[in-house]
């Protein structure tokens, strides 16, 4: 981390950038938050550790409007989102100095809580310099340990790899933490009966409180004005009930990002209700791969997205019925 801070100070000092977009410590040991730093002094609060899950690429939309360059810290998976935003002219590549930061998997404090680890005071073993094998947690009830991988975010178990897709320089080492099949969860649902599927999503989506956290964090959901806030579709600001409204919201949200979603998993990470929202996006990704060939949004900043493309021989919609 210190290397990162030092480099940031250098870049500020030599005028390459006028601000740094990174993370600072939050109120609790496990919730660092995204922050701008404009001076060497401020950078003393800079934090980068296993809890810095937030994808900073979306912040670059606003940062692109500001004067001068911004140094932005992007993890390997974040760079996909950044590429996608370049493709959509939402960020200005010239306004960004991208430091590809190392990543050995990001953590989910809820996983610790699920293990019964409560009253957390501090956590060690999640620094960039660490091997990231074991976490040591100081709690009100004494010291606890757990395997790093057991506390990882879901998305890190299906890691897209340790390579940065776009960067100006790389600081720190990365690790491919993939230890699960990306589409296993989706396949499990696909294998269910319609009744089971319906019950599953009914149960999950009825938890939605329409706080819009998923939408606000999603790098693909970057519309100036969301259709769900627009008068043009008569969909604005509906009260939540456990019926169709939420399904419609989440289906349409997933549809709008289909072919653009990089599967960064931020939506599930931030959902206060713990709804596995990535299951929608990943279903679209799986279908797109099966129907139209493998496609990874953000792997570059030029390729046509699958929904703005076609071939004469595309499958017919009836394939949905036929393949069952």
């Amino acid at each position, binding site marked *: 981390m210190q290397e990162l801070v030092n480099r940031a100070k250098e870049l500020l000092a030599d005028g390459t950038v006028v601000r740094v977009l990174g993370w600072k410590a939050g109120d609790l040991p496990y919730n660092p938050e995204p922050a701008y730093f404009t001076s060497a002094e401020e950078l003393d609060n800079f934090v980068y550790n296993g809890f810095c899950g937030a994808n900073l690429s979306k912040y670059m939309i606003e940062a692109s409007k500001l004067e001068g360059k911004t140094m932005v810290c992007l993890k390997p998976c974040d760079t996909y989102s950044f590429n996608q935003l370049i493709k959509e002219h939402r960020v200005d590549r010239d306004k960004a100095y991208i430091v590809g930061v190392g990543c050995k998997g990001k953590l989910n404090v809820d996983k610790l809580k699920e293990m019964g680890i409560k009253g957390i005071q501090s956590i060690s073993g999640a620094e960039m310099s660490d091997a990231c094998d074991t976490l040591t947690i100081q709690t009100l009830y004494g010291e606890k340990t757990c395997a790093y991988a057991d506390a990882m975010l879901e998305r890190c178990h299906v890691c897209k790899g340790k390579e940065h897709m776009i960067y100006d320089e790389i600081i720190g080492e990365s690790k491919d933490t993939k230890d699960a099949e990306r589409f296993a969860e*989706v396949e499990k*649902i*696909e294998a*269910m009966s*319609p*009744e*089971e*599927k*319906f*019950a*599953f*999503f009914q149960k999950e989506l009825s938890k939605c409180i329409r706080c819009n956290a998923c939408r606000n964090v999603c790098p693909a959901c970057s519309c100036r004005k969301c*259709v769900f806030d627009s008068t043009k*579709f008569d*969909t604005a600001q509906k009260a939540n*009930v456990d*019926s*169709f*409204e939420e*399904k*419609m919201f989440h*289906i*349409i949200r*997933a*549809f709008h990002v*289909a072919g653009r979603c990089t599967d960064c998993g931020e939506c599930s990470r931030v959902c206060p209700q713990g709804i596995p929202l990535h299951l*929608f996006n990943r*279903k*679209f990704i799986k*279908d*797109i791969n099966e*129907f*139209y060939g493998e496609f990874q949004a953000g792997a570059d900043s030029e390729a046509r997205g*699958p*929904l*703005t*493309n*076609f*071939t*004469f021989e*595309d*499958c*017919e*919609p*009836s*394939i*949905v*019925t036929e393949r*069952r």
Partner: protein
Amino acid sequence: MSIEKEFRPKIVAFCCNWCSYAGADLAGSSRLAYPADVKIIRVPCSCRVNPMFILRAFQKGADGVIMCGCHPGDCHYSTGNYYARRRMTLLFSMLDYIGVENGRTRVEWVSAAEGVKFSTTMNEFVEKIHSLGENVRLEDLRCKN
């Protein structure tokens, strides 16, 4: 006490102006009957059909939604139906995924000359919706009369 009423499905058909709407006109002028449950909405091209329209129809109590367009390759706007085909494939797959009976949605390519196909397609589709019964999974109760 409620009286069991005969199920009359609500079916929305989106038809592109150039082929399918004309096909429906031909079915009409050829007097090829299909159930009155089908109501047609004219759109310029199948690529004008937003998934939102379909979900909204279900939300408001439609029991089936069918989209008809020109045959691939014959789109009046050259390529519209190719995009529509991808969109609808993904949407239908998603609906299937969340447990909506597949069969409530359908895409059929009907040319301006295929009045017979239009009529048989609608007959088949209405029959299918009859076999599936009322749409309860997607309906928004607040929208019910």
